[in-house]
C-alpha cells in the first residue's frame, strides 16, 4: 500500500459514492453493445447437434446454399481442417478438440456448421436446411457413470474420462486425523448453474482483403488471452488481428469462453468478404453454456473437542462437460481456498476433472469458491452441533485472527489482511442472533419453522495465473498485471486507456475519482475508454475483467501512469514559473507556487507547452503528455506445487440469514439477510454495495432456483428462462449490508477483492439456515438447489435434501 499522501493531492472523490455519470448513455439507451454497432453486417448462425454423443457423418449443405440470401456455409470438419485445436490449461491427459465439431459431437448443441445469410430471418430458414448424418454413440452424462470401468469415452485419445487426477497434501494430514476427537464428513452434490449475463455472446468479425487481416468486435472478458488463442487457432500472427471490446452487458466469467466462436466468425467473414455478425440467442446460451461444472465433493474435518479443526480432507469430482480449455480449473481454485477463513494446518485435496457429454464449462462468478465455502461452512455448522458448540462459537475459535496477518495457508496462499472475528460479531449483532435463536422454539409450536444460518467466506482476488501449473508444465501466463496509458490533452483534461475491459462495474467512474484526486481536478475532466482496442490499449496476456482484479492491478497501472504524467506536469510548471518542483502544488487544474499562489499555470497552458510550444520546454523534457505504465502485483510466487499463492488479495464476508420454511409447500422465505463485508478501502461505496448485493443474488439463484437439468440420455431440459429460473425482484429480501475495513497492504490503495463475495458466501448461509429450520424433522442439506419439491420430499420421506 502506498502512502495516500504520495498518491492523492485532494481527497474529494476517493471513497465517496460518486454518481456514475460516465454511464449516462446506459439510462438513455445509448450504450454501444456489439449488436448496436452500426455496420453493414451479414448474419451468421450455427447448426447444432441434437445428439449428446455421435459420430459425425455427411453434412449436406446444398439446400441451404441454394436458398436465396445465403452467402456461405462452412462445416465443422472444414473449419477444423484450417484451424489449430483448442489448447488445454489444467488437464494432464491428451484430449484433442477443435472450435467446432469434427469427427464426432460431444454435447447437445455443439456447433457442426456455420451459415451466413443476408439477414437474421433468412439465416434461421437456412439453418433448418442443413442436413447432417449422425451415428449415435453411447452417452455418458453423470459423474458416477463417467468414472465407471468401460464407460463411453468423450475423448478416446485420453483413454479415460478423468483428464486430471491429482492429490495435493500440505501439512501433517495423517497426524491431524490421528489426533482428532471427532471426524465430521459428508458428501455434497452441487448442480450446474450459471450467472447468465443478460446480454448473450456477441461477435462481429471483419476480414480486410488488402491486408489479409481481421478486425473483431466481441464482448469478451479477457481479450489479452483471447487474442492469443484466436491467432493460434487461425494460424496467423497477432498483428493480423485487431480486437475490440465495446460495452458488454454483464460477464461474470461466462464471457471468458466465447473466443472459439470468434475463430469461425473470422473464417466466414474471409469467405464472404463482409463483416459477419453472430448474436447468440438465449436458448443457445443456456444450451451450450457455458456452465459451472456440477460436482460431488466429499469433505472431512478432523476436530478436537474444543472445536479446533486440525485438518481437512477433500475429494473433488467435477463434471467439466466437454471443453478441454477450462477443464480442471475449478478443481484447482477449490483447492487453493480449501481452508476458507480458518487457521487449519493440514489439508489434502484429491481432485478429478471428469469429462462427459454435457456442455462446456467456464469460470463462473466465484469459480470453485462457492462450492468450497459451501461444503466447508456446511461442515462447520454440523461439527458445532455435534460438539455441543454454537455455530458462531466454533467459527470464532478457528478464524485466522487479525493479529496473525499476513497469514500463510498450508499450500502457500498469503492472507494479507482481514478481521474475520469482527465481521462475525457485527453480523451476529445485526441479525439479532440470540433473539432469533430464542424465538425458534415458540415459533415451531405455532407451526412456523424459522432457521438461522451463518457462513464465513473468503473472497480472493487477482489470480496468479500460473495456478494451473500445479497440474502440468510451465504455464503460458504467470502472476497478474495490467497496463494503462494516461494522457493530458490540449485542454488539460485527462484521458485514460486501460488494457482491461468492463462488464458493468463502473470502472470509468472509479478511475475518474482516483485520477481526479491525484491531479486536483474534478472527475468530469477525466475520461476513460469505454472500449478496449488492441490497436491502442496497453494490454497484457492478463488483461481482462475477471478474478476481482480491477481494484488492484488495473488501478495500480492507472496510478503509476498518472504519477508519471503528474511528475512531468510539475517539471514543466517548475520551468515555466521559475519555482523548484518541490515548492509547487496542484490546485483546481493548475500548478501554483506553495509560497505565492498568484504564481500559477493552468494544465491547459502546460499542455500548450508540451504539445505546441515545444521549444519552450525545459531541457531534456520530451514533448507530449502521454505516459504508459504496467503494474504487477508483487506478491505472486513462481508456480510450485509445494508453496504457491493462487490469489493475491483476500476480501471476506459474513452472511447471516434467517429463513422461514413452509413445511406444507416447501417454499423458503427470507426473514432477514445480513451481509458484513470487508473489501478493504472502497473507491466508490455505491458501486461496492451493488457488487456485494448483486453477487449475493447470484448465490441465491444457485441455492434456491437454478439448475441445468439433463435427462439420462444427455438431453438438456432447461433452455429458456421459463425452465431455468432466475431470481426476480419479488421474493428477495432487503439486504442489510455493512462493512468492516481492513486495508490491504499489498495493493496501492488498500483495496481488495470485491464483486464475487456474495456468490461465494450465500450458498452455505442459506443452506445452514434451512437445515436449522428443519432440524425438528431431522432433514439434512447435502445438495443444491434446495427446491420446494426436494424440501417436501425430505420432510416426508428421505430426510435428505
Amino acid at each position, binding site marked *: 500500500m502506498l502512502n495516500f499522501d504520495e498518491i492523492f493531492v485532494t481527497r474529494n472523490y476517493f471513497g465517496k459514492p460518486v454518481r456514475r455519470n460516465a454511464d449516462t448513455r446506459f439510462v438513455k*439507451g445509448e450504450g454501444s*453493445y456489439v449488436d448496436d454497432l452500426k455496420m453493414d453486417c451479414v448474419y451468421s448462425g450455427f447448426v447444432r447437434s441434437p445428439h449428446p454423443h455421435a459420430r459425425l457423418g455427411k453434412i449436406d449443405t446444398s439446400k441451404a446454399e441454394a436458398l436465396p440470401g445465403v452467402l456461405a456455409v462452412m462445416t465443422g470438419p472444414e473449419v477444423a481442417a484450417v484451424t489449430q485445436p483448442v489448447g488445454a490449461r489444467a488437464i494432464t491427459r491428451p484430449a484433442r478438440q477443435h472450435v467446432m465439431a469434427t469427427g464426432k459431437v460431444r454435447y447437445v448443441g455443439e456447433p457442426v456448421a456455420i451459415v451466413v445469410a443476408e439477414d437474421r430471418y433468412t439465416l434461421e430458414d437456412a439453418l433448418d436446411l442443413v442436413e447432417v448424418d449422425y451415428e449415435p454413440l453411447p452417452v455418458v452424462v453423470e459423474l458416477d457413470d463417467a468414472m465407471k470401468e468401460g464407460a463411453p469415452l468423450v475423448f478416446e485419445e485420453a483413454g479415460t474420462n478423468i483428464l486430471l487426477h491429482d492429490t495435493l497434501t500440505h501439512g501433517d494430514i495423517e497426524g491431524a486425523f490421528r489426533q482428532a476427537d471427532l471426524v465430521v464428513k459428508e458428501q455434497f452434490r452441487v448442480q450446474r448453474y450459471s450467472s447468465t449475463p443478460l446480454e448473450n455472446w456477441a461477435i462481429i468479425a471483419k476480414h480486410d482483403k488488402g491486408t489479409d487481416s481481421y478486425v473483431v468486435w466481441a464482448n469478451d472478458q479477457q481479450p489479452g488471452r483471447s487474442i492469443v488463442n484466436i491467432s493460434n487457432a487461425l494460424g496467423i500472427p497477432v498483428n493480423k488481428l485487431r480486437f475490440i471490446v465495446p460495452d458488454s452487458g454483464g460477464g461474470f466469467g461466462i464471457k471468458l469462453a466465447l473466443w472459439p466462436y470468434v475463430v469461425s466468425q473470422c473464417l466466414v467473414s474471409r469467405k464472404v468478404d463482409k463483416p459477419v455478425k453472430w*448474436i447468440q440467442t438465449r436458448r443457445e446460451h443456456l444450451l451450450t453454456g457455458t456452465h459451472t461444472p456440477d460436482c460431488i465433493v466429499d469433505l472431512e474435518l478432523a476436530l478436537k473437542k474444543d472445536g479446533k479443526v486440525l485438518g481437512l480432507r477433500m475429494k473433488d469430482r467435477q463434471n467439466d462437460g466437454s471443453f478441454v480449455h477450462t477443464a480442471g480449473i475449478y478443481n484447482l481454485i477449490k483447492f487453493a481456498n480449501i481452508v476458507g477463513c480458518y487457521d487449519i494446518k493440514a489439508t489434502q485435496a484429491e481432485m478429478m476433472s471428469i469429462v462427459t457429454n454435457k456442455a462446456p464449462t467456464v469460470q463462473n462468478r466465484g469459480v470453485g469458491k462457492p462450492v468450497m465455502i459451501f461444503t466447508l461452512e456446511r461442515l462447520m455448522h454440523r461439527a458445532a452441533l455435534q460438539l455441543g458448540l454454537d455455530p458462531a462459537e466454533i467459527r470464532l475459535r478457528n478464524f485466522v485472527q487479525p493479529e496473525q496477518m499476513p497469514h500463510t495457508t498450508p499450500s502457500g496462499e498469503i492472507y494479507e489482511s482481514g478481521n474475520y472475528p469482527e465481521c462475525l460479531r457485527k453480523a451476529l449483532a445485526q441479525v439479532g442472533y440470540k433473539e432469533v435463536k430464542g424465538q425458534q422454539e415458540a415459533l415451531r409450536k405455532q407451526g412456523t419453522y424459522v432457521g438461522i444460518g451463518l457462513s464465513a467466506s473468503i473472497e480472493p482476488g487477482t489470480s496468479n495465473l500460473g495456478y494451473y501449473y500445479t497440474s502440468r508444465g510451465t504455464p503460458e501466463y504467470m502472476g497478474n498485471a495490467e497496463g494503462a496509458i494516461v494522457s493530458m490533452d490540449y485542454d488539460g483534461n485527462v484521458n485514460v486507456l486501460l488494457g482491461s475491459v468492463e462488464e458493468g462495474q463502473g470502472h470509468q467512474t472509479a478511475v475518474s475519482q482516483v485520477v481526479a484526486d491525484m491531479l486536483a481536478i474534478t472527475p468530469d475532466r477525466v475520461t476513460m475508454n469505454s472500449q478496449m482496442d488492441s490497436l491502442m490499449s496497453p494490454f497484457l496476456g492478463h488483461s481482462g475483467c475477471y478474478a476481482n482484479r480491477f481494484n488492484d492491478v488495473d488501478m495500480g497501472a492507472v496510478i503509476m501512469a498518472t504519477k508519471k504524467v503528474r511528475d512531468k506536469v510539475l517539471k514543466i510548471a517548475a520551468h515555466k514559473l521559475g519555482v523548484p518542483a518541490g515548492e509547487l502544488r496542484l490546485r483546481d487544474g493548475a500548478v501554483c507556487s506553495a509560497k505565492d499562489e498568484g504564481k500559477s499555470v493552468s494544465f491547459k497552458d502546460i499542455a500548450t507547452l508540451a504539445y505546441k510550444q515545444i521549444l519552450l520546454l525545459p531541457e531534456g523534457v520530451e514533448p507530449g503528455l502521454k505516459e504508459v505504465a504496467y503494474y504487477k502485483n508483487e506478491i505472486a510466487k513462481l508456480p510450485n506445487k509445494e508453496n504457491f499463492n493462487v490469489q493475491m488479495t483476500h476480501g471476506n464476508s459474513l452472511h447471516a440469514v434467517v429463513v422461514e420454511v413452509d413445511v406444507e409447500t416447501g417454499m423458503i422465505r427470507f426473514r432477514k439477510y445480513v451481509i458484513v463485508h470487508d473489501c478493504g478501502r472502497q473507491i466508490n461505496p455505491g458501486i461496492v454495495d451493488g457488487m456485494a448485493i448483486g453477487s449475493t443474488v447470484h448465490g441465491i439463484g444457485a441455492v434456491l432456483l437454478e439448475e441445468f437439468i439433463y435427462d439420462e440420455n444427455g438431453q438438456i431440459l432447461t433452455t429458456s428462462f421459463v425452465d431455468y429460473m432466475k431470481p426476480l425482484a419479488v421474493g*428477495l429480501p432487503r439486504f442489510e449490508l455493512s462493512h468492516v475495513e481492513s486495508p490491504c497492504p499489498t495493493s496501492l490503495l488498500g483495496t481488495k477483492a470485491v464483486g464475487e463475495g456474495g456468490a461465494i458466501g450465500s450458498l452455505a448461509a442459506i443452506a445452514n439456515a434451512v437445515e436449522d429450520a428443519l432440524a425438528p424433522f431431522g432433514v439434512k442439506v447435502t445438495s443444491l438447489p434446495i427446491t420446494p419439491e426436494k424440501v417436501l420430499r425430505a420432510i416426508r420421506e428421505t430426510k435428505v435434501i
Partner: protein
Amino acid sequence: MHTIRLKINGKDYEDEVEPRLLLVHYLRDKAQLTGTHVGCDTGNCGACTIFLNGKPVKSCNMLAVQANGAELTTIEGLAQNGLHPVQEAFLDKFGLQCGYCTPGMVLSGLALLQSNPKPSEEEIREAIEGNICMCTGYQQIVDAIAHAAGLMGQSRSK
C-alpha cells in the same frame, strides 16, 4: 410483405416488412433504435420493454405488423432534453451496472409511477417482476424507482 405506418418517439415511419418480423427487430434494425435490447427471446427478461399507445409491452413478443398504426415510445424518446427523472434516479441510486436491462427497467418503473405515484417497496418489486437484472440484485433499482417517485412528485408540485 406488408406496409406498416407507425409513430416512434414522435417521428413517423413507413416500411415494408415481412409478416414474421418481430417488433424488437424492426425497432433495432430498421428504425436503428438500439436502446431496446434482447435478452431472452421468451418474454421473461423485459430488456425489450417499450411503450405502445402508452402501455408497456415486450417488443420481442409482438410482430412489427401488430404495431401498425400505433404510437411507440422507446427509451430514446423518454426525455426530449437531458434526462427524465426516472433516468436521473437510476444514476443517483446506482440502479444500474452493465446497463443492458436498464432501458426496460426505466420504462417499467415509469409505467408503475404513472399509475401509482407513491408505490410501496413491494409494489415496486411487483412492477418489475417482468424485468430481469443479472447484476444488481435489484435493491438499488428498487431504491431508484422509489427515488424517482420523489423526483416526479417534486416536478409535479412545481
